[in-house]
């Protein structure tokens, strides 16, 4: 995945400017930064959910406009989307991740079932497959959404704040699932406030501040054993408004 000179504006207001980010295959990248720094906007831009106002985006070496191999990407949105107005079982939600690979009007094939079983096993929810999603705790719902993305057997996994509001045991289960993927050679891009148990998995950290990249390199606590956060810049420079709701209604960013 490569983004050169990327810029995104929501409702005419520039949010991201001058983003150059290339993620080589097999890397585990963490996007960090405070609320309103543009982390979620950036992942929504690289998955095509928000249009770029400038710059070029290429996925797997293909320019975005020509890209059609969507089954190679797995997206885990923020948790709000896990339940709808009609009950659905864990297995049904995870199976819907296979739509990237299924042909129209065909029943679920044996390969589809195997992929769904395996995805459930990776996130440790095999025994809850027949439970309704709305009965699960927040952390388990987050794991369901990850399993849904995994069911499509993606090479690039993009996760938007999977650890937000998730307790430690669920974070550990999540880290275990991501470790399995990393060992299989998947490329992972993850947005987070806090890394917790994910810490040892991170190859590279990108810190966003005010819509720009403020730091790009290895996680510092790795290299020198210091405390687990970064000080990219001493100045406070937040001219992103702190009122979130007008932006939320325009397509969301946090």
């Amino acid at each position, binding site marked *: 995945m490569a983004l050169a000179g990327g810029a995104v504006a929501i409702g005419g207001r520039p949010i991201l400017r001058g983003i150059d980010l290339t993620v080589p295959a097999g890397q585990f990248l963490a996007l960090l930064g405070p609320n309103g720094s543009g982390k979620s906007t950036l992942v929504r831009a690289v*998955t*095509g*959910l928000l249009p770029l106002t400038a710059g070029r985006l290429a996925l797997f070496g293909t320019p975005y406009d020509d890209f*059609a191999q*969507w*089954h190679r*990407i797995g*997206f*885990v*949105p923020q948790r709000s*989307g*896990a339940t*709808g*107005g*009609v*009950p*659905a*079982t864990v*297995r*049904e*939600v995870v*199976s*819907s*991740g*296979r*739509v*990237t690979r*299924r042909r*129209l*009007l065909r029943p*679920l094939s044996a390969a589809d079932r195997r992929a769904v079983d395996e995805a459930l096993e990776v996130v440790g929810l095999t025994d809850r497959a*027949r*439970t*309704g999603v709305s*009965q699960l705790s927040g952390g388990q719902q987050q794991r369901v*959404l990850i399993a*849904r*993305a995994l069911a*499509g057997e993606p090479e690039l996994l*993009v996760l938007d704040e999977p650890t937000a509001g998730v307790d430690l045991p669920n974070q550990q289960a999540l880290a275990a699932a991501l470790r399995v993927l990393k060992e299989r050679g998947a490329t992972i891009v993850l947005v987070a406030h806090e890394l917790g148990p994910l810490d040892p998995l991170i190859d590279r950290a990108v810190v966003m501040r005010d819509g720009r990249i403020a730091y790009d390199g290895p996680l510092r606590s790795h290299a020198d054993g210091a405390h687990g956060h970064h000080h990219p810049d001493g100045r406070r420079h937040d001219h992103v408004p702190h009122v979130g709701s007008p932006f939320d*209604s*325009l*397509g969301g960013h946090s």
Partner: protein
Amino acid sequence: MTLWELFGLPFMQRALVAALLTGLAAPAIGTFLVQRRLALLGDGIGHVAVTGVALGLLTGTSPTWTAVGVAVLGAVAMEVIRERGHTNGDVALALLFYGGLAGGVLITGIAGQGAATLQAYLFGSLNSISQADVWFTLGLTVVVLVVTLGLLPQLFAVSSDPEFARVAGLRVRAYNLLVAVLAAVTVTVAMRTVGLLLVSALMVVPVATSQQLARSFRATLLGAMLVGTLAATGGLVISAVLSFRASVQPGPTIVLLALAMFASTWPIGVWLRRRQRLLTPFPEVTVVPHTTTAEHPHAHGPDCGHPAVPHGDHVDYVHGGHRHAMHGEHYDEH
């Protein structure tokens, strides 16, 4: 005339077939509307279609076809307004509701038709169903069932999480428009049996009934179709039986029967959900303080009547708000 002779009449048979088909198709499309939390979309389309009916009366063309056209336009407009999201979705829907209804009543007046003509479309009228209408309903039902059951995985993905579906490469807007257009056509076809103002009840109430008992999306969908079919045909038969004594219209009877089915499954659903929540295993926690119960009146067991809930390697008996676990000769508070 006996009841048997009544059902021998061709118009009654046509009505039965039309009701059966509507009862199948409306909940099938309604499930996706409920999933997207757009339960009232069908009602909005119904109101907009009133203008379509009035246009048909004014121009002297078939009101069914003008209603289909206007309803499809209205559904597409709602979908576009909702997707753009700049206006509050609720308010946008309300504007269309009232515009459609007011336009319909106004144009009917201009056309020189009284409220009675419009009423046949607002609340359904069985003896106006023609042979062609039945064939049209059949064709539509087949299309709705092929699309909703055939494209179930895609439609489920789109309606439960549009962002995920878009990154998965699905054309979310096309699928949403497909559902909206099918809903519009279903509404206008069903106006002959239950009427425009009540048709969306047949899209929503069976789904609400079905999800009282179902846990999965597929079971809800199929259950809703079953409930819809039973309510539509049952309501028609009941209204025919009662019409010997008073003028009972089929449309409201169908809707009230569906609501009665909801009302009767609701307590069962409450009980099932409560039971399931009660028997969900307690999470295992490693550090537990050891508290024994006071003198215990009886021995817990399979027959003691207290729910036995799995908790790690043993079971806890839920007893008066406490969790009692067997520990040697006494019970522990867990």
